[in-house]
Each structure stands twice: as C-alpha cells, then as structure tokens.
C-alpha cells in the first residue's frame, strides 16, 4: 500500500466496503503515514460536516393534505 493507492481507496475504506485484507492494509499504512492519518480524519469529518451543514427541512401536514387532495382528484379524472 502506498499513499496514492490509499487515496484512491479511501472512499470505500470509509464505507467499509473493501475486502477485509485491503481494509487491514489501509489501517497498516495509516499507522506508518501521519499525512494519510490526518487525511482520513479530515476526509471523514468532511462527510459529517456536509450532513450537518444542510438544514433539515420538511413540509407541513397541511401541504401534504392539499397535495393529496389535488392528486386524488387528478387520479379520478384519469
């Protein structure tokens, strides 16, 4: 494992979708490479911050009810 290959596989490493031996290789590489360790931490945190940066939004029950009425009437006309 070198830094370039590590970087290419980081996405799958974070999602734990790599074969176990590759996951282990990456962990071993991070043990010996401080820059890749930092990269992993900041990459993971980027994902977390992306999730938190965007506001949770939802529509009201009234809007859902109005939409249902509209759609039901359209469905009946078909």
């Amino acid at each position, binding site marked *: 494992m070198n830094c370039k290959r590590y*970087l290419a596989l980081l996405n799958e490493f974070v999602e734990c979708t790599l074969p176990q031996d590759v996951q282990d290789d990456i962990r071993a590489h991070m043990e010996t490479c401080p820059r890749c360790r930092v990269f992993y931490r900041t*990459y993971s945190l980027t994902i977390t911050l992306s999730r938190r940066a965007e506001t*949770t939004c939802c*529509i009201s029950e009234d809007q859902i009810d109005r939409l249902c009425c509209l759609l039901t009437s*359209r469905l009946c006309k078909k």
Partner: protein
Amino acid sequence: MSKGTRVTKDTELVRRIKQGDGTAMEEIVKRYSNKVYSLAFHITHNTSAAEEIMQDVFLTVVAKVGTLENDAYFATWLYRVTTNAAYGFLRKEKKYTEQTPMEDIDHDQIQGFDWSELPDDVLLSDESKNIIRRAIDALPESMRTIVIMKDVEGLKNEEIAEALGLSLPAVKSRLHRGRLMLRDTLSVYFSRYANRRDA
C-alpha cells in the same frame, strides 16, 4: 427507504395507483413527500421552488406511473424525476452552470494541518456551515447531485446509481471526487486556525 418489506409495500402501492386507487396515492405522498421536498430544496435552496417541484413530481407520478415498467424502481424513479426537475428549475433561473471539474487532487498537495481536532464551535460555526454549503453548490453537477443524495439525504450508493442511471463504480468515483474537493475547500478555510495556533 429500507429494502425488504418497504420495497414490497411500495410495489403494492404503485400497482394500486396504476389502478386509480387514491388511498394508495395518499400513502405514497405521505411516505415520500418530505424526501422529495428535501432533495429539491437542497439542490435549489429555494423553499417555493422546492414546493412547486414536489407538486410537479407527484403530478408526474399520476400522469406517468403507468409507464413505469418495474414497480420496484418507483423510489429511484421518483428521485430521478426530482433531480431533473430541480436542475431544470436552476437552469431556467440561470442560477446554475456546469463547472469544469478540478484537476485530480495531488497527494503532494495534501495539507498537513489536522483540522479535525478543532473544537466543535469552530467546526460547526455558521461560517463554516456556509463555507460547506457554498462548496457543495460549487461542485460540478455530476458530483453535486451525488454528494447531496448520499451525504445530505443519506441514500445508498445503489439507490443513487439506479436513480441517476449510472453504474455503481461511477457513483462511487464521483462521490469520492466530490468529497475530496469539499475536503480541499475546508482545509483551505480551516488552515487559518493552524496559523493562529502556530502564532
């Protein structure tokens, strides 16, 4: 959208909608309206547009659900219609232009500052949230949609691939590149705290 029973229920509801069942339509709306609205809002950042898109998406369901050949793909079809409508809105408003993807990030350019150790009040400040939102907005559309669907909306890679008509490797690749670009932006932004700490 978990697999298993939910898929079966969606399939059943879609089958009933095709037969004109209003109750099934209501159930689908209750199940997916917030997801559709949220995705549209995170792409457009416009509440009125998101509401309009949501309505249009479900009207499209009524009009075109009969053309859906495999009912099991209803949810991903819904997401595809939503993203198309949201980007259609942005293009109409001329608020969106495809940008040239950044060059591949060179590992030699990786900055050594570990900003993951910054305190939460810095990482989660309104300013840093704005930086992230702007960075997501600035991503090329091919990456931006996937980052929003995955990291903001929490969809699975497989669902995104189906919704956007992409291969799974293509989704993973674009997601990775998008995240790398976001990380790069954040590294530049947070580097100011490295300088302060060194001072």
